[in-house]
């Protein structure tokens, strides 16, 4: 028993070390790129850290971004447990946001205690619908869910752009905005003087639901079996297609919720491109966490603060916020390469080859 705990603990430490190493490596690459473009990397990173964690207000902004990433990451991880790769979080987020905005604007006369749950649930369902459509195509026609989900993102983004320039446009404004949602739809603020709203708690609650579902609920177990061995699941009589549909449906709901909370809690109105890459940032955080709920908490916060820090960077230096995309790409690639385990292996192999060659040479000489 002690042994098991010990190896498990070691494995956790190793994966955390590998994640931290990848992150440090990515920051180094980022620094080189910043330096190449002619800015002072140390100064930029200083601005980034200050923008992410300098003071209550900044930390609350980081937490807000983290909670959005947590939910879009859940959209990915929920499906990945079933062996699917769902890149559709971005589109689902837009759909959720659009639906919540519509409810918040057109049902504005309702009291807050009805309107808030109503618009949150609406956002969840809109995201679930968009994810469920993906699930339907996957389970019914067995289409490649990766490409389809990416295409759905582009379609959803265009759809929202249509809404805010056409039917949902605020006629009093020149810019393509939706009208502001009713004040009774706005989420209550947790900490005075910041924008930190109760959505953060909802995101945490979703993480707990995710953990509980896969740990203790039989259908969660079935989905895990489908993900790990499809043939085995079919042999055991599980409905593989139904499970695939369900994970994409619920995953879509989580991402829809992310969009909903972003509108109801932060933006208060819908506009084009309001999600600055939340979809793939969340997926990157989820990948770094490797399906672990606790890990997701940390990686979402890491990427969330990075993202909120990058906004300050864009504001105060010449470096655009896309720095985050670079760091995120390098992090995932280095994690995939498993440098902390593969590099020593490669060296060992090389040494082994060399020693074999040395022995052969010696024998040849003698």
């Amino acid at each position, binding site marked *: 028993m002690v042994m098991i705990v010990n190896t498990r603990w070691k494995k956790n430490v190793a994966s955390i070390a590998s994640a931290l190493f990848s992150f440090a490596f990515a920051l180094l690459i980022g620094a080189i*790129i910043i330096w190449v*473009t*002619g*800015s002072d990397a140390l100064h930029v990173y200083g601005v980034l850290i200050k923008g992410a964690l300098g003071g209550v207000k900044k930390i609350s902004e980081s937490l807000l971004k983290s909670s959005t990433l947590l939910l879009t990451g859940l959209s990915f991880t929920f499906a990945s447990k079933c062996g699917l*790769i769902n*890149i559709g979080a971005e589109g689902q987020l837009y759909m959720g946001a659009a639906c919540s905005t519509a409810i918040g604007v057109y049902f504005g006369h309702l009291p807050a205690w009805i309107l808030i749950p109503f618009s949150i649930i609406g956002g969840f369902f809109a995201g679930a619908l968009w994810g469920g459509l993906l699930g339907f*195509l996957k389970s019914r*026609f*067995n*289409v*490649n869910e*990766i*490409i*389809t989900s*990416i*295409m*759905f993102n*582009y*379609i959803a983004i*265009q*759809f929202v*752009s*249509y809404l805010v*320039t*056409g039917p949902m446009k605020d006629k009093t404004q020149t810019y393509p905005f939706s009208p502001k949602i009713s004040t009774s739809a706005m989420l209550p603020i947790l900490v005075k003087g910041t924008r930190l709203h109760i959505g953060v708690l909802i995101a945490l609650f979703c993480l707990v639901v995710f953990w509980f579902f896969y740990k203790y609920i039989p259908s969660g177990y079935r989905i895990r079996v489908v993900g790990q061995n499809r043939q085995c699941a079919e042999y055991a009589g599980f409905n593989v297609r139904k499970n695939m549909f369900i994970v994409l449906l619920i995953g879509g709901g989580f991402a829809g919720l992310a969009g909903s909370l972003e509108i109801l809690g932060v933006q208060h109105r819908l506009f084009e491109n309001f999600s600055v890459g939340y979809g*793939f940032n969340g*997926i*990157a955080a989820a*990948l770094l966490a490797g399906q672990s709920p606790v890990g997701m908490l940390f990686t979402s916060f890491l990427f969330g603060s990075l993202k909120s820090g990058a906004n300050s960077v864009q504001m105060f230096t*010449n*470096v*655009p916020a*896309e*720095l*985050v*995309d*670079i*760091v*995120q*790409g*390098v992090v*995932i*690639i280095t994690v*995939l*390469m*498993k440098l902390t385990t*593969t590099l020593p292996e*490669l060296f060992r192999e090389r040494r082994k080859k060399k020693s074999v060659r040395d022995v052969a040479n010696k024998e040849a000489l003698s």
Partner: protein
Amino acid sequence: MNWGWVTGILASTIRQSTPLLFVAFGTLFIQSSGIMNMAGEGFMLLSGFIAAYVTSITQNVWAGMIVATIITGIVGFFYTFIVQRFHVDQIIMGLSFNSLALGLTTLLNRSLFPQDTSSQQILPEFTFKPLGYSIPVYLGFLLIPLTALLLKHTRIGLKIRAVGEYPLAVESVGLDVIRIRYIACIIGTLLIGFGGAFLALGINNMFLDNMTGGRGYIAMTTVSFGKYTPIGILAAVALFGAGDALQFRLQVTGSIPYQFALMIPYAMTVIALVLFARKSRQPSSLAKPYRKSK
């Protein structure tokens, strides 16, 4: 009936198809060898940016095209190195590479090119245009018989397809699976690089942030839609090129909201996947990392 409209669409189809054609054939080479190419999007962006940058410095389109193609090939080599040496998940690797390329090109674009649109640099265009199309368009058409010949009737083509189907058999006759895959990937990324460069120089006349807008993924779809045959891929690319041309046309005429016009290529991709998902044949060893047997 006004035929000018039809010939306009046709000419636009041919132009729009060319970058897609190069990327699709590049993807064909890579995927035939058994390596999944999710990174077409990233390679296109990278090469498009380099092409625009080099052209703006040298004021010569071909310098931009060639430098961008070669650098993309070199990046493709390192990409393949990571894929083969570290046995990474090829799908996630491709997606992360796309994120990296998007961030990198956007960052460089904003810091190297002047950003206010009024002073946006105008790049030189292709000047030599027999029958109204620039040379890369003709090269694109030349590519089809060449690829068919190379993959079906030459030794290296057969080797590439063999490592995609059954690498163990290839190794058992004493050939180097890893090396053959490197060759296929470098040919493939060179083609993708050329396509990306043409998208920037021949179609957009500049580099725009995220200008590929999913074309890398669409090219990937045309390969499976075209069932890994050059003619099939040509047909698929032409179909998507026509969709693209139609989309521009509809945007101009304003008969439907432009956002719905912009959705056309993406919706077409989904429909193509739904209609042909079950019938697609792909190399048996696609996306499976290969480890040399000891």
